[in-house]
């Protein structure tokens, strides 16, 4: 091989090698353009922490049709990092994106991005009080943030700190409202239910419960039910057996209803449309009447797989009382959602996004 030929070959190689990376593929594609009037279920897929791969899926129970990643597919905009929950207000859906410190707002029929609430430290849940006021709970700020869902501005905050630096108390999670009082559970290394007066935007009371209350609901008689996981063994905060507790309507004291075995970690307390039955996860799906004429009964067996934990998310359709549970499988692939009738008979299975956990029901509406 002579020198010229070799130089030529090297040059050719150099010309062929450099190629451009396809970064623009992430936003240049045919977008989803739809307008769905029918009712349906939004599945909020957390995604993996720091991966920024959270998503929202939309499922139509009437047809069994599923649209995945509707927010990104419609807006060419990734939802963010760890989508925690979604709250509806009229035609708008507020998706709380925990590790992105924001709430994205979208139209629930077109999935169009319509705005955002930013400046939130580690938001968890949003609870709408009026057209112009909503509360956002937070893992780190030791405050409940007050926002205006209309102007999408942060308008204030409610200090919930107990002054103790150890364990970073109080973190706030889910919210339910009875009359003008909002109840929120403090889960992480904590054992309190805080009571917030929505007229004054301040804490007026707190209720002591078992360790680590992770979910709470109000039944049709306005009793407050609280599910506590008891904390993990070896926790510096201490641990105990988990339990289901109830705060009778108008009272500020919790009574123990039932206790779980050591090593069990119940979660996901919810109610059906009638608000006469309680549902929760403890490996499988359990159901219990609020009248306590029965003990919790196992309705659906948990998935049998070596990936740890059984079902990840649970909800019950408020209109049909059908049960939806999610299985995150290995947590790094798109998870499954199973749908059962109120008696636990399987109806459908569909694949949602990565780590599906919470759900949000969209009522039918005129466009």
């Amino acid at each position, binding site marked *: 091989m002579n020198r010229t030929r070799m130089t030529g070959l090297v040059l050719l190689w150099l010309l062929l090698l450099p*190629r451009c990376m396809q970064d623009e593929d992430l936003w240049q594609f045919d977008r989803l353009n739809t307008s769905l009037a029918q009712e349906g279920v939004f599945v909020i897929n957390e995604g993996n922490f720091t991966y920024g791969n959270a998503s929202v899926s939309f499922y139509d129970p009437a047809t069994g049709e599923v649209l995945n990643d509707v927010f990104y597919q419609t807006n060419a*905009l990734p939802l963010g990092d760890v989508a925690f929950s979604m709250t509806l207000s009229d035609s708008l859906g507020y998706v709380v994106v925990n590790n992105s410190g924001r709430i994205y707002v979208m139209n629930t029929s077109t999935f169009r991005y319509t705005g955002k609430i930013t*400046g939130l430290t580690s938001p968890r849940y949003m609870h709408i009080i009026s057209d112009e006021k909503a509360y956002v709970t937070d893992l780190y700020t*030791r405050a409940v943030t007050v926002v205006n869902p209309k102007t999408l501005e942060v308008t204030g905050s409610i200090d919930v700190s107990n002054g103790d630096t150890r364990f*970073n108390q109080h973190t706030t999670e889910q919210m339910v409202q009875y009359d003008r009082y909002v109840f929120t559970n403090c889960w992480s290394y904590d054992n309190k239910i805080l009571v917030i007066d929505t007229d004054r935007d301040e804490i007026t009371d707190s209720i002591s419960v078992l360790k680590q209350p992770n979910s709470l609901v109000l039944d049709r008689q306005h009793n407050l039910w609280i599910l506590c*996981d008891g904390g993990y063994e070896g926790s*510096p*905060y201490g641990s105990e057996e988990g339990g289901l507790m109830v705060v009778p309507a108008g009272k500020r004291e919790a009574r123990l209803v039932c206790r779980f075995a050591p090593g069990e970690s119940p979660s996901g307390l919810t109610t059906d449309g009638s608000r006469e039955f309680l549902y929760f996860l403890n490996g499988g799906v359990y159901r219990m009447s609020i009248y306590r004429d029965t003990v919790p009964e196992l309705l659906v067996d948990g998935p049998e797989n070596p990936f740890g934990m059984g079902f990840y998310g649970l909800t019950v359709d408020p209109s049909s009382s059908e049960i939806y549970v999610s299985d995150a499988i*290995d947590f790094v*692939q798109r998870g499954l959602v199973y749908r059962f009738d109120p008696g636990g008979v399987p109806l459908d299975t569909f694949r949602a996004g990565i780590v599906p956990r919470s759900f949000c029901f969209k009522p039918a509406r005129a466009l």
Partner: protein
Amino acid sequence: MHRLRIICFLLAGSLARDAIAIIPGDTVIAIEQVEVAATGIFDRETAGMKQQRVDSTVLLEKIQRSLSDVLSENSTVFIKNYGRGALATASFRGTAASHTGVIWNGMSISSPMAGMVDFSLIPVYIIDELTMNHGPSSLLYKGGGLGGSISLENVPEWSRGFGAEYIQGIGSYGTFDEYLKLGAGNRKLRSTTRLYHNYSKNDFTFVNTAIGNLDPLTGEVTHPLDTNQNAVILRYGLLQELYFRPGENHLVSLVYWGQFADRTLPSPSSYEGPSNANLNNQTDADHRVVLSWKYYYGKGRFLLRSGYAHKELEYLQLNRIPGLGEVPSIFSVSRQNSLSGTASYTWEPVAGLTMEGKLDINMHGVESMDTISGAGYDRSRNEMAFLGRVSKSLGSRLNLNLMMRQEWVEGKRLPVMPFFGADLKIADHPELVLKANISRNYRYPSVNELYWVPGGNPELLPEEGISMEAGLECRETFGTHSLKTGLTAYRTDVRNWILWLPSVWGFWEPFNIERVLSRGMEAEATYRWHPGNFDLRVAGTYAYTRSENRGESSILGNDSFGKQLVYIPVHSGNLMLRVAWKKIYAVYQYNAYSERFTTSSNDPTRRDWLYPYFMNDLSFGAIFSIGDAELSAGLKIFNLLNESYYSVLYRPMPGRNYHFVIGIRL
């Protein structure tokens, strides 16, 4: 003939370097001249093993950079890089970061706590020789390197008297680095001191596609131009080497490496919380020291080595909350202390036979605590390992190598780790050698995997790897041209692969649930043409890696069976081209990976997918001599084509950037 034998000895790899130390000075100079040829390809003591040495010109060219850069650009090791200056982990042959061992001057520096190494914290400044031990060849040094191991060595420059070197770098994004090396000594005693300091504000700008703003007029989504905030990198350290040759056949060395690194890690690019929230900071303070004595007599070589490593890692995450001030949400502090001892005896009773017995004892203490929640642990771990090795030459064309490694960890005996390798010389001109091996390897879970609070799983079993490989290596010099090539195919079957999964309690917990079958090919080629004043070097590597999840296929809905592991590219390759004429040089560096998946099911969803990576860098410079001093100046251009890209999901990387370097050498 004498010289030839010395050269062969030199080429033999790590043990050969000991030989240099005892050879009188004039031959050393001769040896340094043949150094270009790098490692030998037919040697009894490493028969069947694949060891690749990174060329010293590469280390020199990339002296201000991190080991992670050199590995990704000049070897088949895949580096997962979490951002400029941020955590970088290494994967060999499609295995996990914890399957890559790192040996520094004979001592393992993998964190006993995490079981892995952050390669962005190892500067090239401190490395004289860099060797990759692919796959089971790592068993020579340590068990558990299911993918392989990386050896970093320091070597004395006996032939140099007093020497001084200073390099100053100034780069984009407020990057400054300083490096000073001082060496002095005679043929008996030598000291080398290296001091370095790297700082980068790291405040590059990027179009943030993870944040969408609505244009109030058009309703269109726009993306802000953001700055990579809170991403400062600071790293400084000292490497002190002392070598002493009391007699012709003794070598005593004492090497100390201390380093402090302080980094803040940017929030996810999608973060739109308050600017005073989600702040964090990580400091890594390391002290490592190794004392060794090598004694050569007659037919034997004796080695005694003792090492100590201390690591202190602090991770702080805080939010500034009005009315409350700075509120830390995580403040995790860990301290790791390791003491290690090695005794080895190598004996050549007759020509063509080498036997070695080696005993390693390590003691680790790990303390880790999150001072906010109070969760933590304090554990100690003792390890003992015995290695027996017999290497035999059968005639002049066949070398056989048998090793048996036995390890005990925390009083538990691991199964025996055997290795059998062979080299067959097929031809002399060009020198063509067939290499093959078969082995079994075990990795005992790291302290975190067993005891982390919350989530450590004390029931974990060691990961087991059974592997085999075969390859060809070829080397030839013809006139002013020299060529070295290698091609290897391997198969590694790892069982009880450890995977972290969330538990019902909300924290993550490791389980022995996967089986991973990794198969692939590695090809390397280096070519040099050096007629007179002109010097052309071309070096490239290519790896084909099929690393498949072969765990449970029966799980309902599990789509991961048979799929490529996350973040492992099937194709990866790089090319370096260096052209020099007299004292002027230019280096072109190209690096590419095929797509990487971030889901175990290899979901093709655009958003969860990392598109193929193609990176071009260019550098050029010149060296001038003024009297005894040698001055150098160079400019490096990184990301030549100004690509905007991610190498990990939503961790933006910088566009085209520059680094200017000047140096002086006495």
